[in-house]
């Protein structure tokens, strides 16, 4: 057969090597330095020294529990919203897109070409207090007469949902596009309604995409800070904002490092739980 076939055992390692080595050098090494920093103590003026300062971790969890929880909340809600909004769109592109599929995919990522700040400023214009959207919501009673959308938790979640939309839509599309339409036809030939065919055939086959999309959305969203900074008030700030301020304004690098690791641990715990829930084959194939 082939060389790789004979040396089956080697193949995975050969495939992994370039990417993993790259990550090992440019991610793991910096991460180790970060871990070292997280156990330092001192102040910026005097200097930091390594003292196995596990207290940094305790402080992180203890003092900023609200922001941690809020981050996971906002990211979770945004992920669910993104899933609900993106799935039908991905489905439509995959099954009805025809030869225009690639162009439509481009439209999904197009907002990223104008940089985050410009997008957000545009949304600020759209969601302005005296703008059409808020006016409409006020007239149908969802908002009070002096209610607003900007500088609230709602705006932050909406911002996260919008900005992470492609991260959900593209993996969904990738999985949906693979589904052989004849399977769906077969199901309908066997008397399944369109809806049932979807639930029993399409949805399960698209689960790898759902899992991929939710992970690619939730994980980075939990550490986001920009949406909260521009669209939220001080009571909507996420853990990303705190880490940002610890690093930049307070130059408290050990605290920022420790908080980052607590966040990473929290996220990975949730991912592990999620993997168990979904069944690991969907995650790892």
């Amino acid at each position: 057969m082939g060389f790789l076939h004979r040396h089956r055992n080697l193949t995975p390692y050969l495939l992994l090597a370039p990417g993993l080595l790259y990550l090992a050098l440019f991610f793991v090494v910096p991460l180790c330095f970060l871990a070292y920093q997280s156990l330092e103590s001192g102040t910026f003026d005097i200097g930091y020294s390594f003292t196995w300062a596990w207290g940094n971790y305790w402080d992180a969890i203890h003092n900023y529990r609200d922001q941690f929880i809020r981050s996971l909340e906002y990211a979770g809600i945004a992920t669910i919203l993104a899933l609900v909004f993106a799935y039908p769109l991905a489905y439509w592109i995959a099954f009805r897109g025809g030869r225009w599929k690639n162009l439509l995919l481009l439209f999904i990522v197009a907002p990223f070409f104008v940089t985050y700040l410009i997008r957000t400023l545009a949304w600020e214009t759209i969601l302005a207090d005296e703008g059409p959207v808020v006016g409409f919501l006020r007239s149908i009673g969802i908002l009070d007469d002096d209610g607003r959308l900007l500088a609230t938790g709602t705006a932050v979640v909406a911002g996260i949902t919008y900005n992470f939309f492609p991260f959900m839509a593209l993996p969904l599309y990738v999985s949906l596009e693979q589904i052989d339409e004849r399977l769906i036809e077969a199901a309908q030939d066997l008397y399944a309604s369109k809806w049932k065919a979807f639930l029993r055939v399409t949805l399960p086959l698209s689960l790898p995409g759902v899992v991929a999309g939710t992970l690619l959305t939730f994980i980075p969203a939990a550490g986001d800070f920009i949406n909260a900074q521009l669209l939220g008030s001080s009571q909507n700030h996420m853990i990303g904002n705190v880490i940002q301020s610890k690093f930049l304004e307070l130059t408290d690098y050990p605290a920022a490092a420790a908080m980052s690791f607590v966040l990473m641990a929290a996220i990975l715990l949730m991912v592990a739980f999620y993997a168990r829930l979904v069944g690991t084959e969907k995650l790892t194939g």
Partner: protein
Amino acid sequence: MSSVPLAEHAPRESLASRLWAFVKRHVLTVYAWLAFVYLMLPIAIVIAFSFNNPAGRFNYVWSGFTLDNWKNWDGVPGLSSAMFLSLEIAALASVAATVLGTLIALALVRYGFFGRSATNFLIFLPLSTPEIVLGASLLTLFLNTTIVFGFWTILIAHVMFCISFAVVTVKARLIGFDRHLEEAAMDLGANELTTFRKVTLPLIAPAILASLLLCFAISIDDFVVTYFNAGSEVTFPLFVWGAARVGAPPQVNVFGTVIFMVAVLGMVANVLVQMRRERSVA
């Protein structure tokens, strides 16, 4: 109406059910259009404001239509070089990340090996690391070497955080991939490389494209990690963030619009070429 035995397969098509089928069929399309409107709304505003004629330096309030920004597209020093740098880096980073990521995805999905679940978790780590500490730690790494900050450090950073996205996206396609096609090819005498090129790759092409698009978008939009590792180079997001402090000039909008239009035209051209090719074959 008398039913014919053959028609037992299909349910009786009354007017109501046909109408309902019509609505159902088009609901999805209507939804898709609305979704695109939602996605494009900020772009529309950006395009609109590229024609704005603000008297001051801020471009927030509509003050009058003008084509000056377009005629004067190169009027802001540093903006076009920032944009070209961003495009260059995004293109290279997305390709590199997709290649490395596809290899990893293949290994993870198709082989069981020692360290498989560890690798799966390792892939998620860069995604979960807050950008500011990621950027700063990478900066520290670079400071301990003698590398010069600029194009290469930015590129290295971008590839690094894009790999995870590429892996997860391609994996979604590989799970559920029908391996029989590959086996058939090999049974017919193709070696691994040919099979990969002629069978596997075309079938996972949508995932590769999706990964390229996603990585490109992430790279062209990245701010924090780039800020720390750019040295003296200025990418488009860096420029915009700086300019916004005193008023982002409308030329920023012009550039955003142009890039978007170029990409759209590129894709449309691609489709038209394909159509012509199909017609000539037929």
